[in-house]
């Protein structure tokens, strides 16, 4: 296989994984809306998430042309793109008059992203473990801002290996 074909295969693989990630996210978005009795609506759609994903990926590769781009890194970039706050908005927004606060919205957003990654990478999590992981992720990414793309990718790799 030529190097060009290799590049194209890598690209097709990435596209397929992103499709899987978004497919799962979309399913979760709809499930969450039902779960919260339609008191939340989704702000992000496939195009906006993919745009953020590619911006992040391009920025990262500008900084480091040799940065890894395996399935775990693709999933980590997707996670960051999905959970990123844009102008005070997250992937979801509470409908007017609902009692759902910003903390809940952040948690629902991370929960959706984590579930999408787990589905796409075939990671099976027990509920208790999932809650613990979610808290860690939210704290590290949202509150402490300490988790990098490489860090998150390693975390997914460990999760997949451990289950």
């Amino acid at each position, binding site marked *: *296989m*030529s*190097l*060009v074909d*290799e*590049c*194209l295969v*890598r*690209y097709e693989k990435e596209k397929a994984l992103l499709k899987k990630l978004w497919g799962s996210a979309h399913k979760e978005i709809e499930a969450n809306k039902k779960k919260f009795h339609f008191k939340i609506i989704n702000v992000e759609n496939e195009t906006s998430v*993919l*745009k953020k*994903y*590619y*911006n992040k*990926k*391009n920025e990262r*590769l500008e900084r480091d*042309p*040799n940065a890894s781009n395996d399935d775990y890194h693709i999933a980590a970039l997707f996670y960051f793109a999905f959970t990123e706050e844009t102008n005070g908005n997250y992937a979801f927004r509470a409908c007017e008059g609902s009692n759902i606060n910003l903390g809940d919205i952040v948690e629902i957003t991370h929960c959706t992203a984590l579930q999408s990654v787990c589905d796409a990478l075939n990671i099976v999590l027990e509920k208790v473990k999932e809650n613990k992981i979610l808290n860690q992720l939210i704290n590290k990414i949202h509150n402490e801002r300490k988790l990098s793309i490489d860090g998150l990718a390693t975390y997914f790799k460990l999760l997949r290996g451990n289950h």
Partner: protein
Amino acid sequence: MTPNVFTALWKNIAEKEIKRTIANQHKIKVKLRENEQVFRANTHVRYQSERCNYRKTIGMDDSDKLGKNEVAASFYIAFVKENNMTCYSNDKKIRDFDSVILRDLDSAINHETAFNIARGILESFILSGNEKIDDGYRKYIEKNGMGFSKGIKKEDVLKLLIKAQNEKKLSIYMLISIFLWLESDTRHCYEATLRG
């Protein structure tokens, strides 16, 4: 190398390889950033500059000619320096979002083409140069071309060269070593066929 010799080399080896690369792409299209004549002239200027720098750094006399590996290496560097072959796509998603895949493909296409041309230059030196080679080896190269021995993939070598270029560490010495290695591997493969 005079412009005439360079033009002949370009016409006989590079032009065919470039056309083959452009014709081969289906999902992603390839074009030249400059028209072919300008690209050829600029590659010649870059080749001369590489050649001069190399001669200076190793203290070569002006009357001494470069060896075939040195010519191929200088050509390779001159060819990939500006990534003149570039990919484009009609797919809106690739065009709008994913500039990285196009950049990766640009590097892959330029390096792969440069390698094939440089290898063609080496083969032409071997087949029509002054070197004494046995008839069997000549026929072997005519039929099979030059190649690495089993277990070494050209693509892996190219990936390392692309990484070196990304880190601004691609050097003529690195390429000369690779072409020496390619030559020696080809000879080993030929001898292996003789042994059966």
